[in-house]
């Protein structure tokens, strides 16, 4: 069999942007005569038809399931039924928290080829080859899937550009038998703000990371941020330790620096999850004692040095 099946992702009535990126990844893999289908699972999937009606998509498959929000048992069962019925070559899901909850289980149960956090995929001599990172992104790893008829790939967000042109793909309804889930979703909770800062609205952010070493050093950078007129942000370890409120955390599980134009990262190594929240900023300056830190690969300017010394010297200019 053939074809590319994309599993769209929605949450609280909104299509998640990564769904559209998956479409582009799928379209890039299409061979002559193959189709790209996107499935959307929801208790009311029809509302997602319009935003998914984009150029390059041949078919939208609406899958009505018994839960409004993600549920691992329900998703595993419905996506599993879809794969079994259609036998696609490639199944694309997002490398996201929802997919973490079911994709590996499904790939294991159906014996699919499987790779996660894939940021590049191509066909080499007809064989699918996916590229992901290894050892904290210090190396890239090419993987293939010998002997697998169907390969499921979890694609990293913010890599593929979504298709822009509207189109009118055909719409198919896929019926899936009801499943009794062993989990019950209760409610969504916004992470308690801690303070009223809005990182998404800040134009100038100074972020501190694990490199500051101890809580007592936070004050120095808070004062520096105030002096230079920046909003103080942090990477995950600082918020986890409770040194700064969660509302100041920039990254995948924290906030995105959406309107930021100048971003100074001090003592931030640049884990992929942190980069997801800031790598788009036009001017990034990274200060780190480790010349090999990943943050330097997204920064415009880099300072290899001691963050405390730089902070002290910088303070004299304001």
């Amino acid at each position, binding site marked *: 069999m053939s074809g590319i099946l994309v599993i769209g992702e929605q949450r609280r009535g909104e299509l998640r942007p990564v769904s559209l990126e998956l479409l582009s990844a799928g379209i890039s893999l299409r061979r002559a005569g193959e189709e790209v289908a996107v499935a959307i699972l929801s208790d009311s999937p029809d509302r997602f038809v319009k935003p998914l009606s984009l150029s390059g998509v041949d078919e939208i498959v609406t899958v009505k399931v018994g839960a409004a929000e993600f549920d691992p048992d329900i998703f595993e069962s419905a996506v599993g039924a879809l794969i079994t019925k259609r036998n696609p070559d490639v199944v694309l899901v997002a490398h996201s*928290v929802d997919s973490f909850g079911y*994709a590996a289980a499904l790939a294991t149960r159906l014996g699919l080829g499987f790779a996660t956090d894939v940021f590049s995929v191509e066909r080499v001599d007809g064989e699918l*080859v996916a590229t992901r990172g290894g050892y904290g992104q210090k190396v890239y790893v090419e993987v293939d899937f010998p002997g697998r008829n169907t390969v499921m790939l979890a694609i990293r967000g913010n890599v593929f550009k979504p298709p822009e042109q509207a189109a009118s793909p055909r719409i198919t309804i896929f019926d899936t038998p009801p499943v009794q889930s062993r989990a019950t979703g209760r409610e969504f909770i916004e992470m308690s703000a801690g303070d009223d800062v809005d990182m998404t609205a800040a134009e100038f952010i100074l972020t501190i990371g694990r490199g500051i070493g101890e809580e007592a050093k936070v004050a120095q950078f808070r004062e520096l941020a105030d002096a230079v007129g920046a909003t103080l942000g942090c990477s995950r370890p600082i918020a986890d330790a409770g040194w700064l409120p*969660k509302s100041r955390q920039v990254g995948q*599980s*924290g906030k995105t620096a959406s309107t930021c134009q100048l971003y100074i990262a001090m003592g931030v190594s640049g884990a992929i999850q942190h980069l997801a929240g800031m790598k788009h900023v036009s001017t990034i300056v990274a200060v780190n004692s480790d010349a090999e830190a990943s943050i330097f690969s997204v920064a415009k300017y880099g300072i290899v040095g*001691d963050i405390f010394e730089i902070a002290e010297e910088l303070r004299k200019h304001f």
Partner: protein
Amino acid sequence: MKILVAVKQVAALDEDFAIRDDGRDVDSDFFIRDLNEWDDFSLEEAVKIRESSAEPVEVVVVSVGPDEADESLRKCLAKGADRAIRVWDTCIEYSDSIAIARVLAAVAKREAPNMLFAGVQSSDQSFASTGIAAAALLGWPHAAVVSNLTCTPGANLAVFRRELEGGLLHEVEIQCPAVLTIQLGINTPRYASLRSIKQAAAKPIEVLSLSDLALGAADVGEAGSSSRVRRMYVPDKARAQLIEGDAAQQAARLAQIIHAFKGAAS
């Protein structure tokens, strides 16, 4: 109650490292090994449940890895695990997350715990799939990226929060036994005391082979994996333009960048 905690000894790379001759991995001479950061949190979560429980709770750590992994298992014993199991066989080499999950599931069948915890992901290969794959093999309910957990020994339901993207949490109730993958920040992992480190050094580590788990070579390694590494390489990454000089000169240039931004913004 028994909680099985799956842990991994991960490898970070030395500043200068080399790819192995076959081009499929980094030369292990350049590995700096340590307990996976996520696993520190899942172990702590299990130990916390034991400490707050009226009924006895046993915390068992399991790792799939060669002799060197004992070091990480001892760290876990020092931090409060009651028992440690290590599984190894040379054919486990080249296993991906799904093949490792097959070994973990076999250990879980043998140990029959009430809960299986794993880290959300490992810091070296970042598959984010081992725990959930093991759940599929066990047929257990499962959930990923748990950042808050209420789990009472003996209860057949646990309540947790999934940490979603963008600072959103999703509260979910799940039937036990279950597999949960634990997120950073769920607790504050303890440091091992000198005394507990000494005690841990004297504790035995149970070592199992594939045949002890009724598994064969076809279940693990490349044969049992869902993907195969073709090639590993050091990418040509974009590099920041470096600001040279001593700290005063570097800071002066940074101050210029800030002033220029503020001038343009005002």
